[in-house]
């Protein structure tokens, strides 16, 4: 789960990482009030959206007067940045920047540790820096949750000098602790700056929280911004379904994430377009199938639905019961192709006999049939 910059900075502040003073604004008037409250000097007006590249897109502007703040806020609120509409602004006191650096802590899948990525090239797109000048990136990590003090100190000395080094190590230590305490997958400060007063301050903040750990971080769950999330994906998850809306017309209902991806790939391979990813999960509750139908059809523009089940823990007869129940309780106006294999497949097929469902034996046959029916051709 991602959170906004201003929420990340609030967590930084609680963790003892210096951040500039700022205010959240939801309207132009609130932005102007924030400017006055912050002392009426230079501020940054920053779009709060869960996407990178806000600056380039015009979502971050400096303003020196109330009129400039009004103009900037008016321009940025409602702006579309890579498909994300701006509903919130962060108004922040300007900083006297001497040097800029990049610091992040990530879960490093390759090294299987908690890793630091550090660079003196602050304020840049770090992926570009990594691609064009990899020697400007320092990486080190921890296998046992202890802060890698000596490597952090060495890295900090590459970024800043004088008392900035100690301040930087301090920020890195606190950032590492925040990562552990809040079960993060990523925390990034870009840029981390050295100010004219010699302070090390986080001018930006990006946090990604491990979804698996949200169960033990209830207060972080409250930071979720539903404007930035697909409501269907979130509510489906609460019902035990993994659902992701795509832009095709072939609805899919599959058990298992890997098989669900394989089904989408196969639809593409045979010239169709999947409308969604949907994993009904391992349990055999017929009610889940009813919910799954609802999510698929609510996505709109569905020409046909493919149900692809390989029974393991999931029992095909339970899936069949769910399908029949869905047909009883809702209007399903498109052809539905069903392929059941594995545990209790024969029982499941017997249950569906005589219904309007179109049976298929193999995976490939099921995909081809669904695509043909979606185009209005005979299968």
């Amino acid at each position, binding site marked *: 789960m991602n959170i906004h910059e201003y929420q990340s900075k609030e967590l930084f502040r609680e963790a003892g990482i210096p951040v500039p003073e700022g205010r959240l604004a939801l309207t132009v008037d609130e932005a102007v009030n924030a400017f006055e409250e912050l002392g009426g000097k230079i501020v940054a007006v920053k779009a709060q959206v869960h996407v990178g590249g806000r600056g380039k897109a015009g979502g971050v502007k400096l303003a020196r007067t109330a009129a400039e703040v009004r103009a900037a806020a008016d321009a940025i609120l409602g702006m579309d940045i890579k498909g994300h509409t701006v509903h919130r602004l962060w108004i922040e006191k300007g900083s006297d920047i001497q040097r800029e650096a990049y610091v992040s802590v990530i879960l490093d*899948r390759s090294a299987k540790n908690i890793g630091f990525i550090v660079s003196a090239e602050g304020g840049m797109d770090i992926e570009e820096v990594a691609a064009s000048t990899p020697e400007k990136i320092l990486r080190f990590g921890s296998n046992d949750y202890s802060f890698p003090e000596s490597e952090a100190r060495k890295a900090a000395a590459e970024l800043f000098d004088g008392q900035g080094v100690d301040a930087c190590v301090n920020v890195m230590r606190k950032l590492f602790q925040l990562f552990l305490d809040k079960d993060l997958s990523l925390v990034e400060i870009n840029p981390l700056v050295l100010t004219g007063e010699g302070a090390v301050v986080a001018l930006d903040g990006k946090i990604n929280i491990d979804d698996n750990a949200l169960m033990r971080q209830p207060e972080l769950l409250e930071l979720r911004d539903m404007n930035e999330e697909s409501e269907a994906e979130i509510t489906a998850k609460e019902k035990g379904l993994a659902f992701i809306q795509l832009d095709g017309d072939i609805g899919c209902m599959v058990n298992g994430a890997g098989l669900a991806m394989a089904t989408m790939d196969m639809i593409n391979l045979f010239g169709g377009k999947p409308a969604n990813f949907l994993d009904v999960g391992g349990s055999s509750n017929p009610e889940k199938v009813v919910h799954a139908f609802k999510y698929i059809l609510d996505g709109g523009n569905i020409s046909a639905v493919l149900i692809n089940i390989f029974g393991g823990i999931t029992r095909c007869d339970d899936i069949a019961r769910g399908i029949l129940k869905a047909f009883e309780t809702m209007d399903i106006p498109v052809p539905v192709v069903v392929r059941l294999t594995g545990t209790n497949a024969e029982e499941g097929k017997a249950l569906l006999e005589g219904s309007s469902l179109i049976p298929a034996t193999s995976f490939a046959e099921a995909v081809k049939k669904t695509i043909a029916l979606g185009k209005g051709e005979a299968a």
Partner: protein
Amino acid sequence: MSILIDENTKIIVQGITGRDGSFHTGQMLEYGAKIVGGVTPGKGGQETQGLPVFNSVREARDAVGCDATVIYVPAKFAKGAVQEAIDAEIPLIICITEGVPVNDMVGLYHQVKAKGLTLIGPNCPGLISPGKSKIGIMPGSICIPGKIGVISRSGTLTYEIVHALTGLGIGQSTCVGIGGDPIVGSNFRDVLALFEADPETEAVVLVGEIGGDEEEQTAAYIKENIKKPCFAYIVGASAPEGKRMGHAGAIVSGNAGTAESKQKAFAEAGVPVAKTIDEVAEMVAAKFNLNS
């Protein structure tokens, strides 16, 4: 032969009295797995399905002896359960549990490596050596004994691949579901090394998916270290960027972790890459003329 487990492997079940643990203990026993006991804290001294229940892994190990433990506890207890198995130095630890906080795995991963133990999972279906034993949740009925090793990041997709192989009369030595999380105890390379050393295994099928760079590293590893023929199948080519496709580890981040990159890496390492599940089985059949 087979890898990791066979008919002599003595197994204990952590979470044996829970809903999933008790159901799959029954399934494993039915398949012929040699389960010698189980662990549920607070229920020591009881008996379930004819097996003794212990309060801790150490107690179980001391009383009945075991080579492997399988963990079916809920996600919030998984770290503790794996830690207990590590502390009791059980050589093979299989964690079926899905949804384990990823940072919990960092410390466990390095402890397991340091002690020379083997951890499979979490978020995995376990493993099966057809005709000998199974640990986990894979349906035994779709497997037949044979000479092909299977390694996969996914559950049902593994069943689909094995089903296709079996359909062509191609048996399996061992099928290992390594798990769909960003950090798992054993990766493709760890298991490949075991298959390479197993005289009974003649070829290996690798089932990968988007996210991370494990497949790319595996391709490079195969080029240098593996003589036996390998075949690959990668899912997720049609997944959108930045979305977790069900598995916690299945996510394309920017240009990293794509199906295309993984397919390319395998192809460059001389590993044939199938476009469909059926094609994987057909490739294996063609190579060995096993289609009987």
